[in-house]
């Protein structure tokens, strides 16, 4: 461990942490959303921090302190105190800021200040990345989780780390080669993204990232020197080493959050006080436990921690739920440890296995109209059934309205699209359909509309939770679990998907005009073409299937009309047998009407909806390609900038102006760092996009097969019915005499 850290630290100058710390929260948030790749980037830092300070336990404790304060005390305090401390103790700063963020207090302010600081220091940029990564380490996570706990959902964060470790580890390994190639961690991405964009909820993810990042960084560091060759053996070793810290981190997280939930007057307070006399009682509780865990690296200790929790639990209302989670977290480290030991292949397998086991059933039922007139809306019952330990219970239901679904998408999309993820889009808003429902016409079409939307929402949600990374997002869990969901905003006027599409289209055409990307990777070029061609074909197909639905409905109506006519004809026919046969024919036609109608419904629900889903999803796929392109563009811009800076330096040298020379050199270092970082970002986003596209294609193949087979089965049933009807009719026709 030590060696690794040293290496990393030497590569990256860690001194300016204080400034960096502030930006990091944002970055962390972003990274969290990413898969294992991101994790790799961030991993270096936590280790580094520990090395420098050589007081991991105390650091953690201190960090926890600010955190707890942040949550409990007003935001103002947090800001003032940490700020002063920041300069003296780098660690403190890191902790403080994340804490304030978690509290969902004025994030912007915090960010603003740090920003100014960073600007003053020339090295800033370089440091920004490592620092931020460092902060994203276990400490941040701890802080983050508690914050989220405030929102009434303590258990989730705890479990996340564990699950993440398991999921991410394999992923990270898979990607390692890529990461290794890129010599520096791409934390730059985060700089670009305005921190304001992201609301509070991302923080819990950070925990996950850090852990995974631990895995990554070792690889990179080790290999960066030997020309970044990804040798499997070294990697494994690295993992083993890395595991310990990871486990630690995860354990720490769990207990910490748990404690946090408990009342401040716990038994632990006293102990805490002993460790940190200066700390406030509430703070001390958290800090104490943290300290204990961090000091001891062994998993056994965690077991103790869980025991403590269980003791506490009798007092707390929530303790029961929590109790289950700590234990889960305790076991998780061991799982991750075992997983990490074997070769990467086995890790992948493990990952797959987990995906298979992955038990989470979501159903949306009982659409219900709430309210009257134009303010009316449909509320849906979202039921979750799961064996995943990250949820509070095995089954739970919440009520959500359509805009909540859009809100969820917006949150997810904000966080994850930037990193190249394919975020499943929700169904689009339909003013026509909804207005009908609002007006309260209880006719067929509005019932069909509601059912169609219900099914679309269900599929949307299933796609979200089926995505291993999105499932980890706290917003998803909040959406599934939280009873009183805050009303989603900004979805009123425009549907999220529609809005996004508009922006996408605008940026699409813009970037296509401005960005001429000389594609280094043929795979992406081909895939993008494929996606575009497929999009076109699917749209065409969708139109046709819609037209089939229309014609089939028309056929149903016309068959009904014909049935009536034949019945009338039969009644006026004066040959008895013929009259009887005609009325039988009318009955057959009546049934056919029903059959055609059912078939139209399954045309629409099995086939057309599937196509509509995938047309929307392909939009998201394209967005992730666009994102990659943007990242590339930024990297190119930075390279150009660096080139300019070098030219300036050369000019200055030539002009013999030593006073400005230093500034120029600083600039160059700054931009060199940026270039490397941006390049890394690009590689990371590329890897994510590639992985996501492959995943998407797998899902698509599965979905299409499943749905089309279902559709064909519905056709088959229709035909069977048809045979039955005509077979019954045939003797009637023969009986005419």
């Amino acid at each position: 461990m030590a060696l690794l850290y040293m290496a990393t630290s030497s590569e990256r100058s860690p001194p300016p942490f204080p400034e960096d710390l502030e930006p990091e929260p944002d970055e962390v948030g972003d990274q969290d959303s990413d898969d294992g790749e991101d994790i790799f980037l961030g991993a270096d830092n936590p280790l580094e921090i520990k090395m420098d300070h050589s007081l991991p336990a105390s650091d953690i404790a201190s960090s926890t302190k600010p955190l707890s304060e942040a949550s409990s005390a007003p935001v103002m305090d947090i800001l003032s105190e940490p700020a002063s401390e920041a300069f003296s103790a780098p660690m403190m700063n890191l902790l403080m800021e994340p804490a304030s963020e978690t509290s969902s207090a004025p994030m912007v302010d915090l960010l603003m200040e740090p920003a100014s600081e960073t600007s003053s220091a020339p090295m800033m940029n370089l440091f920004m990345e490592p620092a931020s990564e460092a902060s994203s380490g276990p400490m941040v996570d701890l802080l983050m989780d508690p914050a989220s706990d405030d929102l009434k959902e303590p258990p989730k964060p705890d479990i996340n780390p564990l699950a993440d470790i398991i999921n991410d580890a394999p992923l990270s390994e898979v990607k390692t080669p890529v990461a290794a190639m890129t010599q520096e961690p791409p934390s730059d991405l985060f700089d670009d993204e305005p921190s304001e964009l992201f609301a509070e909820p991302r923080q819990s993810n950070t925990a996950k990232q850090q852990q995974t990042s631990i895995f990554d960084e070792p690889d990179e560091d080790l290999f960066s020197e030997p020309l970044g060759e990804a040798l499997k053996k070294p990697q494994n070793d690295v993992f083993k080493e890395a595991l310990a810290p990871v486990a630690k981190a995860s354990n720490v997280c769990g207990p910490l959050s748990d404690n946090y939930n408990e009342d401040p007057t716990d038994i632990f307070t006293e102990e805490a006080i002993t460790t940190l006399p200066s700390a406030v009682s509430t703070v001390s509780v958290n800090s104490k436990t943290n300290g204990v865990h961090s000091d001891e690296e062994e998993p056994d200790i965690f077991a103790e921690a869980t025991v403590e929790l269980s003791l506490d639990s009798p007092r707390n209302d929530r303790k029961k739920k929590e109790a289950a989670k700590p234990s889960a977290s305790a076991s998780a480290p061991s799982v991750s440890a075992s997983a990490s030991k074997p070769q990467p292949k086995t890790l992948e397998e493990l990952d797959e296995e987990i995906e298979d086991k992955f038990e989470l059933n979501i159903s949306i039922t009982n659409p219900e109209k709430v309210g009257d007139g134009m303010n009316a809306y449909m509320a849906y019952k979202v039921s979750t059934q799961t064996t995943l330990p990250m949820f509070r219970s095995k089954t739970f239901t919440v009520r959500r309205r359509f805009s909540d679904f859009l809100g969820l998408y917006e949150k997810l999309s904000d966080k994850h699209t930037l990193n190249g993820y394919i975020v499943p889009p929700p169904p689009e808003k339909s003013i026509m359909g909804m207005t009908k429902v609002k007006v309260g016409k209880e006719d067929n079409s509005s019932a069909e509309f509601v059912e169609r939307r219900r099914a679309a929402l269900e599929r949307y949600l299933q796609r979200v939770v089926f995505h291993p990374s999105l499932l980890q997002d706290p917003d998803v869990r909040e959406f599934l679990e939280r009873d009183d969901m805050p009303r989603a905003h900004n979805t009123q006027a425009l549907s999220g998907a529609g809005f996004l599409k508009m922006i996408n289209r605008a940026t699409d055409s813009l970037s296509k005009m401005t960005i001429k990307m000389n594609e280094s990777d043929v795979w992406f070029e081909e895939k993008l073409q494929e996606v575009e061609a497929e999009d076109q074909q699917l749209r065409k197909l969708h139109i046709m299937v819609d037209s089939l639905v229309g014609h089939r409905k028309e056929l149903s109506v016309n068959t009904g009309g014909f049935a009536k006519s034949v019945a009338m004809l039969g009644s006026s026919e004066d040959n008895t047998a013929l009259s009887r046969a005609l009325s039988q024919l009318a009955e057959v036609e009546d049934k056919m009407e029903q059959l055609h109608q059912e078939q139209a419904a399954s045309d629409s629900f099995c086939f057309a909806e599937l196509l509509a889903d995938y047309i929307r999803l392909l939009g998201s796929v394209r967005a992730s390609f666009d994102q990659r392109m943007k990242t590339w563009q930024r990297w190119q811009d930075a390279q150009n900038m660096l080139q300019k800076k070098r030219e300036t330096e050369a000019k200055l040298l030539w002009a013999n102006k030593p006073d400005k020379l230093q500034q120029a050199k600083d600039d160059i270092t700054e931009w060199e760092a940026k270039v490397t970082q941006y390049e890394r970002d690009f590689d990371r986003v590329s890897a994510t996009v590639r992985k996501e596209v492959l995943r998407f294609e797998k899902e698509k193949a599965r979905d299409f097969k499943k749905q089309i087979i279902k559709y064909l089965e519905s056709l088959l049933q229709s035909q069977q019915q048809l045979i039955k009807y005509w077979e019954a009719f045939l003797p009637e026709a023969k009986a005419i005499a």
Partner: protein
Amino acid sequence: MHVVLCQGLDDGPDFLSEEDRGPRAVNVDLQTDATLQVDISDALSERDKVKFTVHTKSTLPNFKQNEFSVVRQHEEFIWLHDSFVENEEYAGYIIPPAPPRPDFDASREKLQKLGEGEGSMTKEEFTKMKQELEAEYLAIFKKTVAMHEVFLCRVAAHPVLRKDLNFHVFLEYNQDLSVRGKNKREKMEDFFKNVVKSADGVLVAGVKDVDDFFEHEKTFLLEYHNRVKDASAKSDRMIRSHKSAADDINRIASTLYTLGTQDSTDVCKFFLKVSELFEKTRKIEARVAADEDLKLADLLKYYLRESQAAKDLLYRRGRALVDYENANKALDRARAKNKDVLQAETSQQVCCQKFEKISESAKQELIDFKTRRVAAFRKNLVELAELELKHAKGNLQLLQSCLGVLKGDT
């Protein structure tokens, strides 16, 4: 557009099911006998007219030969029909309804549109569409031919009409009959005649018939005609939407094919298989629609015209009855005034004879009509049910085997 059915209808491309090869499928069980057999052996579609080759086989002494063919156009069929209608001798018979005018306009229009849209679609799509339209055109063509043939067969099977001189000329005279279409004035006259006739028809229909049989037939035919008209329209609509649905499936199949040929992944193979399936099922769907058209819609359409012809017979009889009653009244008045009694008596007798003659043959005609109708419905409904079953079973088999393959793959 030039479609030739060289070997006659029976060897046309296989898009109507085998069972309905014979043009007689449309209607009826006519008691043909060997003494006079008429069919349309060939037909030629030119720009705006269809030339039918009418083939006759006969042992009747009126004809110079036992077997001969002539070329006739639609207008000549109409001429023949009108000559029957106008012949007072035949007032007591149901005049076989004239065949409908060949109408290729819709089909032609579509083909023209296709030509315009040629640039906007792929070659495969274009070829496919063209084939479809040609098939559609051919179907209309065949139906037209069948309708004309049915008319001739009905006449040939009629005990009285088969002896008509005009009919024999129509069959035998191997030159153009130089019938011309009606000009504007004649059409106007026809129109007024029709208006008068229908106004008169209402009047006549209001008269209570002394004969229960005719009274019953009158109410029956009035209602039946309206309902068969409705059913015919509805069946057309039903079949039209069925055809549209089949077209949609066709287009879906070709788009799936395009999707499937984009690369060679697993899904693409899947798409190709589904495309293949849809390609087959849509053919079946199209045939279902075509068979419904032939067995159901055409039957109803035929009986729409036939019931109109029967109604016309009843009108003629009703008219004769009214005339007869008026003549009676005139005779009474003449006798009361003792003036022109003889003249009145003569006219009364003429009317009486006419009425009785019509009544006599009309009764038999209406009974025959019913027999024919029941037989035709039976035949067509049985065939319809059998075809529906056949297609549904074929469809089912396709789906089953395709699902088996698809499920085996996944």
